[in-house]
């Protein structure tokens, strides 16, 4: 009886045609058939672009299919909202299906405000001035041995010509023509609550979360993202975006009170979501207002249950806004966790000190460079600031190790 129960579970798993995390190295051509993805060299898993090529670099190539990207919101939610939109915009450009869930904004309004992708020629014009400046420094010696290659262009073509990772212009919104061919589903909480006031919930989870899970599961099953429909020839990815999970609008009081009623709602939701993602060809971005959650134990559990966790800390309103050390940047990026998928190791970028900035049109994440300390007499205030920021910088990525001691040489 016991022995029968074990293989029965296993048989069901195999029979369902599980599409998650199976090594597809043998069918390399089949992998490339899904638009907008590329296989990872590390673990053979399909990667999606998060919409921001600099974030893709930090995350080790992109967001893996079947994983959850958790963004810890900054204080006013401005920049995390931007990342959220980038993720969805990338889905539109690549032709993926979208599922947008929100409790405060109507999903179609969110989709109307997606940033416009930069096409090849406009981006090249932008970079044109910088490129000519750089070229003069490149060495112009004629090649002696590989002279056949002399006539090939020296630098690689601009990033927008590749199919993975696009650049977006934040000042313009996406034109509606791009949406025509995209299939998108939405979940707007006030609408769902009013349309079906009574719903049987099979678990004692928060009802809003339970409805969202049911909705996601229904879409995955109906559209065949979990491989349950073998007739479907063209595989596609479902990009799920959930905005401000855990906030008061979802009916969860972890952000508003110190001793919430049900501290397990959010973690249970994330666990089931993880199960749904692993089972299907989808990836999910969730923004959580971490700074509002009083009970830090919940955030630890949430971090353990998510795959990739990126925290944004903006300088708005803090004393760092006017600090000359950070004058080029708008905030810091903390990568708290990167998943190890199908392997013992993960791709960790070497730099732990990352900052972001929003230029006129582009949002980039880059390595934080402190300006050199050029004053003759180092004033006490700035030196303390420097030490403070250096201490902050030396505390690195949580998944690897956190340096508590500031080593002073």
């Amino acid at each position, binding site marked *: *009886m*016991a*022995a029968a*129960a*074990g*293989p029965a*579970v*296993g048989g069901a*798993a195999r029979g369902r045609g*599980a599409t*998650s*995390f*199976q*090594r597809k190295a043998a069918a390399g051509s089949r992998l490339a058939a899904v638009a907008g993805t590329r296989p990872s060299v590390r*673990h*053979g898993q399909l990667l999606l672009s998060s919409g921001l090529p600099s974030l893709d670099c930090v995350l080790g190539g992109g967001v893996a299919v079947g994983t959850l990207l958790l963004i810890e919101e900054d204080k006013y939610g401005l920049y995390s909202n931007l990342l959220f939109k980038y993720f969805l915009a990338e889905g539109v450009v690549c032709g993926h299906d979208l599922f947008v869930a929100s409790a405060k904004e109507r999903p179609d309004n969110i989709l109307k405000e997606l940033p416009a992708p930069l096409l090849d020629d406009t981006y090249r014009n932008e970079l044109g001035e910088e490129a000519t400046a750089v070229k003069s420094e490149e060495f112009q010696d004629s090649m002696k041995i590989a002279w056949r290659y002399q006539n090939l262009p020296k630098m690689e073509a601009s990033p927008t010509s590749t199919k993975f990772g696009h650049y977006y212009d934040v000042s313009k919104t996406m034109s509606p023509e791009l949406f025509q061919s995209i299939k998108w589903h939405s979940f707007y909480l006030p609408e769902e609550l009013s349309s079906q006031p009574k719903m049987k919930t*099979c*678990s*004692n989870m928060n009802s809003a979360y339970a409805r969202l*899970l*049911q909705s996601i*599961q229904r879409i995955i099953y109906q559209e065949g993202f979990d491989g349950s429909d073998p007739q479907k020839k063209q595989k596609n990815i479902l990009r799920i975006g959930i905005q401000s999970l855990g906030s008061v609008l979802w009916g969860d009081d972890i952000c508003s009170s110190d001793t919430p009623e049900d501290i*397990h709602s959010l*973690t*249970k939701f994330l*666990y*089931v979501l*993880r*199960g*749904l993602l*692993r*089972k299907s060809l989808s990836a999910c971005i969730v923004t959580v207002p971490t700074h509002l959650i009083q*009970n*830090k*134990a919940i955030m*630890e*559990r949430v971090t*353990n*249950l998510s795959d990739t966790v990126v925290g944004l800390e903006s300088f708005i309103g803090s004393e760092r806004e006017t600090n000359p050390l950070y004058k080029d940047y708008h905030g810091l990026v903390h990568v708290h966790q990167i998943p*190890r*998928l*199908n*392997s*013992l*190791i993960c791709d*960790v970028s*070497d730099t*732990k000190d990352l900052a972001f900035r929003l230029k006129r049109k582009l949002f980039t994440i880059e390595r934080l460079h402190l300006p050199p300390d050029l004053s003759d007499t180092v004033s006490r205030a700035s030196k303390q600031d420097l030490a403070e920021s250096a201490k902050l910088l*030396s*505390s*690195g990525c*949580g*998944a*690897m*190790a*956190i*340096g*508590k*001691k500031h*080593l002073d040489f």
Partner: protein
Amino acid sequence: LNTLILYKSRAALQGKFTLLRDTRTDGSFLVHHFLSFYLRAGCKVCFVALLQSFSHYNIIAQKLGVSLTAARERGQLVFLEGLKSCLDLLFGEESESGQPGPLQFISESASNLKALFDFVRTSLTPTDSDSWQGPVLLVDDLSVLLSLGAAPVAVLDFIHYCRVTVCSQLKGNIVVLVHSNEDSEDEENELVVNSLCHHSDLILWVEGLATGFCKDVHGEIKIIKRVSLELTAEQDHVQIYQYKIQDKNVTFFARGLSAAVL
């Protein structure tokens, strides 16, 4: 990876409770090691995998030289995939037989892990046709049970029942992974972890380096043999090594003697 085995004396390797504890880093490489180790040794393994999918473990185990699908077909491995059975529970049809699924506690208000324990017990009780060596219970991430709504007392009860059944009655081993943090605010987790530390025979404590991230040394492992439990008035043996994880292997070396430094 096999340098770990050197510290174990094979003689008294039955009825042991091993605790894998990680702080500020990821200790799952130890879980993979123990899984492949016990499968290679020919033991019957019940693996409660709450955090990752089956293919994840399968791919890594193949790199370490063991095939999980083959082991499952042989009946040597009983794999409980937590994510999948949770989905079946919440979204599956109601046509199941009266037997409750192992993760029933998620949807029920009664937070006891009895169903999970029954699953473990039935899968590890030897039947007549089995010819495996001692049974082993492997749990990947006990801390997830707390996140899913189980009370810490319930988790401790579950471990206690498992110890009684697996270690004492069936003379098998248990290996459990937990997360902990020194300044963690998760009191329930700390309670469970501290309690388990007192009860375990062997603790493998994996920590990130105190000085921050390093490419060549991924962390430090403390091996604590709880000799003090054996009533011989000895202190616990503590050994500390540093390690670096590679694709198919983990290399251990004494502190400060990493290959990058020498």
